[in-house]
């Protein structure tokens, strides 16, 4: 099914003084798609989300939001909602007051409470609707921020780290809301450092590193970019398993500083492509060594992210 693009960006550039935050970024997000934006700190994610929300304007390039080109002046496009750097909420007001004020500013009837109540219910905050948010946890604030975005029934929802601080129940609420919105045709662009969230929610991801796109496409394709992975191997005979692993072509056994996980005498960490791992399993079975556990040390998505961005080696400050 053909979906119209909610966001179409070509060659977007943005600098803050001497710091290049975005360097020729292309971005395509279709309506009804949940699109993940990932990258190490300083990659330019927040800057890109800010452009989508109309909080900043690009220095160059072309950006279309919901089918209309974005201009050079600060302006929030109609049908766009969301938040960057956490939801901006007023601690001296209750959850309901925060949302009612927002609804009023957006032009809805201030006396109409149904929309506010619905939004609070969707994110599971009905019970604390009349509490001042001064006492809310980070996760509750995140959910309220999402409720604020829902008030306007957006066609493009922009969320910066929406799962930040959420407990499992809160995460479930947020994931359900985002999935339902996408099913109804809303395009969602979200940033996250949690690859499991991205894997659960996103159909496509864009990986940024130092302001440039290093990957853009389906999540499944990103996982394939991971190359050789470390696998944790627990067997009935570690010594025999070690010997078999050394004899398996294309495989090497990680030792000492190679190992990214906590050392364990019974656990073997092997590194190699998927065919070599498959060959190892066959050889172990032939050698009467029972395989109790075989799993990647780092998830494929995360491994792909680390490989593409070189993250872990850099610790740059996030560009606003």
């Amino acid at each position: 099914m053909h979906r119209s693009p909610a966001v179409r960006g070509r060659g977007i550039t943005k600098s803050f003084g001497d710091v290049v935050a975005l360097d020729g970024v292309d971005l395509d997000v279709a309506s009804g798609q949940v699109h993940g934006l990932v990258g190490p700190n300083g990659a330019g994610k927040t800057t890109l989300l800010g452009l989508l929300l109309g909080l900043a304007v690009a220095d160059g390039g072309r950006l279309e939001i919901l089918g209309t080109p974005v201009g050079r002046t600060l302006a929030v496009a109609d049908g766009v909602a969301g938040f960057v750097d956490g939801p901006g909420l007023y601690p001296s007001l209750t959850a309901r007051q925060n949302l009612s004020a927002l609804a009023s500013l957006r032009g809805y009837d201030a006396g109409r409470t149904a929309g506010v109540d619905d939004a609070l219910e969707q994110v599971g905050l009905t019970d604390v609707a009349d509490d001042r948010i001064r006492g809310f946890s980070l996760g509750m604030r995140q959910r309220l921020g999402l409720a604020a975005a829902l008030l306007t029934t957006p066609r493009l929802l922009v969320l910066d780290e929406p799962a930040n601080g959420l407990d499992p129940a809160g995460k479930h609420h947020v994931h359900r809301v985002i999935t339902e919105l996408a099913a109804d045709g809303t395009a969602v662009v979200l940033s996250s450092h949690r690859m499991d969230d991205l894997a659960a929610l996103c159909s496509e991801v864009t990986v940024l590193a130092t302001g440039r796109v290093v990957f853009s496409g389906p999540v499944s394709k990103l996982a394939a970019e991971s190359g050789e992975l470390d696998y944790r191997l627990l067997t009935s005979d570690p010594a025999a398993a070690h010997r078999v692993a050394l004899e398996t072509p294309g495989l090497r056994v990680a030792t000492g500083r190679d190992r990214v996980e906590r050392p364990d005498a019974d656990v073997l960490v092997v590194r190699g492509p998927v065919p070599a791992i498959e060959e190892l399993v066959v050889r172990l079975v032939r050698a009467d060594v029972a395989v109790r556990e075989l799993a990647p040390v780092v998830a494929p998505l995360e491994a792909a992210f680390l490989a593409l961005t070189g993250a872990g080696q850099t610790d740059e400050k996030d560009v606003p």
Partner: protein
Amino acid sequence: MTATVAPSSVEARPAPVLRGYRFELVKLLSQWRIRVLLLACWIAPAGFVAAVSLQSQLPADTVFGRWMHATGWAGALVVLDFSRSWALPLLTALVAGDVFAAEDRLGTWRHLLVAVRSPRRIFVAKGLATLTVLLLLVAGLTGSGIAGGLAAVGDRPLVGLDGHLLTPAGAAGTVLLAWACVLAPTLAFAAIGLLGSVALGRSTMGLLVPALLAFALQLAQLLPLPVAVRLALPSHAFLAWRGLFTSPVQAGPLLIGLAVSLAWAGVATALAYRLFLRRDFTDLAYDGSGRRVLVAGALPLAGLVALTAVVVSVATPAKGSGIEQAKVQDSLATAYAHLYRLQTRELHRPDVTEAQLRATASCDKGGDRVLDEGPGNDWRCVVSWHLPGATAVGTAIYQLDVTADGRYVADGDGPKEVNGYFQVRTPTGDAPNPLWQFDGNVDLLASTSKD
């Protein structure tokens, strides 16, 4: 490649100013600090005035303080004089000085911009909400002070700063007018607060700007500045309301003070508006505009002071400190004549008019080696007057402490029956002696007879 120019259709309509204003008002009024201030302004003055009015010791160092036993209207003026020194600058600091900085502290600018969609409207809404809260605070100070005075002492005539008597209705109108006049410098300080709040971001310096400026200006006003410079300061209208309580009204300094204050309010607001619209809201670490504060904020206001001082010195007869021998003598003689009539009525003597008294004063400052002009507590005056049918000329001596703003306290030093003692013996018992000590106000802009 450059970003394309967008057709206007992509932009959502900004939130109406009225709704933004309402939201800003809700935010302000939900702060415990603002609620405490409102409560204090609506209750504390009444309690203070009522309590002081019932005590034997009165705040005679404050203008109208010595009349708090005589009329309820004096209490509201004592509150006014106290407020203009400390309360109003502090109130503007706490309300206007924080209204923009609060969004920096809470990290809500992006949220607000997405919701309102117009930095211009955000500025207008915040400005109007600040103004509303300040008006509520000033209304509380006014109403509470009046209520406390009237409840404790009653609705009686008020003695003006030239000794003439204002009827209760006249006093009510003039007291309200005086409070209204003080709104102009309050607006000026509020605009400074907005400017500080916009320019200095989350820095606490933004909050302190109006209070620090008020402190600095108060120090400046203690100095014997040329009258043109004095009138060019935005705080002058905090003092110029006193001119309403003379007859005729000392309109010159008051009108100039109001104009200067409103000019400051306008210029500071415009500067704050300009800085606000130029701000980069994507910078989360924004901590003020630094050097730009000096260039875009302080320098234009310093220029405004200089320009105003030049205009005042050219367009008015202002010279030197504005406190000259002839003016002091005229003011003292007028006040003495009015108060003499008041004493005459207290003593149930036959009434005399000011014209019949033909009171004159002869003043000298600091002896022969000092010029007879300028502020100081070394003014010594001899007041002479005539009584109908009597050939003898009455004389009374006064020591005057004249401050740089034109206010003076005349301390009687003569016969006990005239001005030498704080009480006079009336047919109904001892009563306060209006001629013993009294306040006066020299019109800094009046032309002297020499001119």
